[in-house]
């Protein structure tokens, strides 16, 4: 059997316990014995409800987890757009509520009183961590329904009814009563990007807290908290999406993503201090060339552990000295790692992509010896779930890369051409209604000037010939048909791939 990998892991701060998301399953493991301490799975949706295409593909995988400082409560969220809070020791559900968009990152602030969600739409919202209903002992509610706030209740009920086609848009179940003003600015909306968020984490400096968010448009934004409307700084310099951000110390943060380098910044001034190049190390680990996105940056005091997609290694970067940081070690792994975490005993645990290499175990561990080198240590056997039961598509960050037109590699005197988005310099811009267009087009068609294939066959020509204007694949106007074919083939491909990372606004 092929073990389902643990796509997200989280370590308990003081006990040797690991919380792991195995597809839609939530598990907690004892790291010393390998025993499964507790487990949880979302209840299956009602049988009569037909699952949507997105639900089938996403499989309700859990994407993000966060633990309170004392390790007593765990909050998770995933593809099902539900924010759940559990008792960490028993994995008993304490509360759950629906959130409007899929959450990519969670963070706890205000001494664990408030939870922040960074979602795929680009927004960061805040919610009270404990709901008033939790004060009541026992299960969330008598009839088994989750404890949800008034607002989410109307959203959830309204949208469920709408999906069934029972209620017209804009009205709630009571009919005749419009749902809340959809144009209202949500009170709990802290900040937003105009691009999907890839990650969100907290930044602590003196006694202030900041929210660091990164998006697909290569921006890293640092905003104050709780006054998140104030943007403190933008860290700009990446040329590809930013997938991970981490704070190293008081002044320094690290960012990485689709670029082949890790950025080391002084976030207070916004200056890029170093570009830590990973290309060579990744090429050596992979054994081949190619673009690889950084999956995660894991900071432990002065050391940063970097895992890169498709590379079966953990790169260790030491920041203790003043000199330019570089990769001090590349810990070999049986297969690329999906997540990295350090436990309470300072052991480094890597969750392995067992789909790539089925013979590998789901978790491997390393410990630093006296010289600071990392040696593999024995790990107990962990109960694993069979992939046959259902494989959750992974959030491969490579899909966040934008498909860009390759830049034209020729010299142009007028670089404004490029800046203004014109076609390649030297290529004459075709104005559909430009001067002499008609004359030019006629001349082209008659073969009087070069570029007969560029001639646009207009509807007038065809009607003159007595034909119905039909789609002509040589003409630029007729891309619609070709586009449809391409779209359907792309759709078929997309269905095989992980749909969770497709950047469509939900």
């Amino acid at each position, binding site marked *: 059997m092929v073990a389902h990998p643990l796509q997200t892991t989280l370590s308990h701060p003081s006990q040797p316990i690991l919380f792991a998301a195995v597809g839609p399953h939530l598990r907690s493991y004892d790291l010393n014995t390998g025993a499964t301490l507790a487990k949880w799975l979302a209840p299956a949706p009602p049988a009569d409800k037909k699952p949507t295409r997105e639900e089938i593909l996403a499989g309700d995988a859990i994407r993000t987890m966060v633990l309170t400082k004392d390790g007593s409560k765990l909050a998770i969220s995933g593809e099902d757009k539900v924010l759940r809070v559990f008792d960490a020791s028993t994995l008993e559900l304490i509360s759950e509520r629906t959130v409007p968009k899929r959450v990519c990152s969670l963070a706890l602030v205000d001494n664990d009183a408030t939870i922040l969600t960074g979602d795929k739409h680009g927004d960061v919202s805040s919610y009270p961590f404990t709901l008033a209903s939790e004060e009541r002992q026992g299960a969330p509610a008598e009839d088994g329904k989750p404890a949800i706030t008034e607002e989410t209740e109307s959203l959830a009920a309204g949208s469920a009814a709408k999906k069934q086609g029972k209620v017209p848009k804009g009205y709630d179940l009571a009919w005749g009563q419009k749902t809340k003003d959809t144009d209202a600015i949500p009170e709990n909306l802290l900040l937003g990007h105009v691009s999907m968020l890839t990650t969100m984490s907290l930044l602590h400096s003196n006694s202030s807290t900041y929210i660091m968010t990164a998006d697909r*448009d290569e921006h890293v934004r640092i*905003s104050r908290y709780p006054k998140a409307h104030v943007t403190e700084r933008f860290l700009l310099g990446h040329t590809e999406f930013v997938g991970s951000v981490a704070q190293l110390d008081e002044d320094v943060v690290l960012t990485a993503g689709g670029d082949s380098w890790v950025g080391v910044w002084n976030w207070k001034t916004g200056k890029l201090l170093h570009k830590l190049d990973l290309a060579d190390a990744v090429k050596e680990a992979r054994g081949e060339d190619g673009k690889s996105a950084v999956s995660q940056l894991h900071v432990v005091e002065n050391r940063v552990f970097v895992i890169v997609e498709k590379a079966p290694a953990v790169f260790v970067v030491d920041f203790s000295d003043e000199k330019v940081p570089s990769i001090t070690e590349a810990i070999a792994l049986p297969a690329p790692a999906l997540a990295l975490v350090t436990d309470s005993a300072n052991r480094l645990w890597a969750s392995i992509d067992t789909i790539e290499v089925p013979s590998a175990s789901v978790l491997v561990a390393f410990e630093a010896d006296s010289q600071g080198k990392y040696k593999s240590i024995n790990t107990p056997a962990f109960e694993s779930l069979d992939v046959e039961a259902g494989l959750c598509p992974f959030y491969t960050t490579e899909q966040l890369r934008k498909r*860009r037109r390759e830049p034209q590699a020729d010299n142009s005197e*007028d670089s*404004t051409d490029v800046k*203004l*988005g*014109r076609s390649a310099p030297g290529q004459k811009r075709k*104005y559909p*209604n430009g001067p002499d267009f008609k004359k030019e087009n006629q001349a082209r068609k008659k073969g009087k000037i070069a570029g007969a294939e560029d001639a646009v066959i207009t509807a007038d020509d065809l009607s003159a010939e007595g034909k119905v204007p039909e789609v002509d694949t040589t003409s630029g106007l007729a891309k619609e048909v070709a586009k449809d074919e391409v779209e359907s083939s792309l759709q078929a491909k997309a269905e095989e791939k992980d749909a969770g990372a497709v950047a469509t606004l939900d």
Partner: protein
Amino acid sequence: MASETAKRTAEEVEEVVQLPQKKFFRQRAHANPFSDHDLEYPASPADMDWSPLYPAYFPAPAEGPQRQVEVADIGCGYGGLLMELAPEFPDKLMLGMEIRVQVTQYVHEKILALRKQHKETGGYNNIAVLRGNAMKFLPNFFVKGQLSKMFFCFPDPHFKSRKHKARIITSTLSAEYAYVLRPGGIIYTITDVRDLHDWMVKHLHAHPSFQRLTKEEEAEDVCVRIMSEATEEGKKVGRNGGEKFVACYRRLED
């Protein structure tokens, strides 16, 4: 255009400077601001080369410090506002940002033509146009607190509810505008759509760093008058006898 051709001096007769005609540069009014559009933008403001846009000012001229762009016209359209503002503030560098390709080309060619026409006075050297997506990439062009004025003239109303998130002024985008605008800087908005005006007021008001200018302050500011009358949209609204709604906000200290 007749008045502009009349400005031609005898020396320029052999070099006939023809201003571009709008009819060859018409383009659909709507463009999806969330799409990637194959846009060109610098990785950071330090990487931006302004010399093709402002050849008279970049690299810095012999006398005086290096100037920076101070005024941005977001969604400048056919450039009417920029053309009027240029002689009004000859010392300020102004940039128009427009997402549509052909419209940007029109404005660019018009600016070049105007610069040629006003060679001896050196007019219109302080304006330029850029094809860009201001919703997404404003911080890529401007450092924190660089701008002193931002104009949003007759933005796309995006009438449908589901399109409201594409409006150029939203509470979340206000944070980005507050970032590039210096304390004391002003955002000028004008529209003929009442719903959009209410929306912009609501969203800018929701951001604690913005304070609305009073009617008296609006009346004193020459930019408000220019904004109301100079743009192509503004003239069209005037011709049709529509009402124009103005809202200006000052950026306060954080």
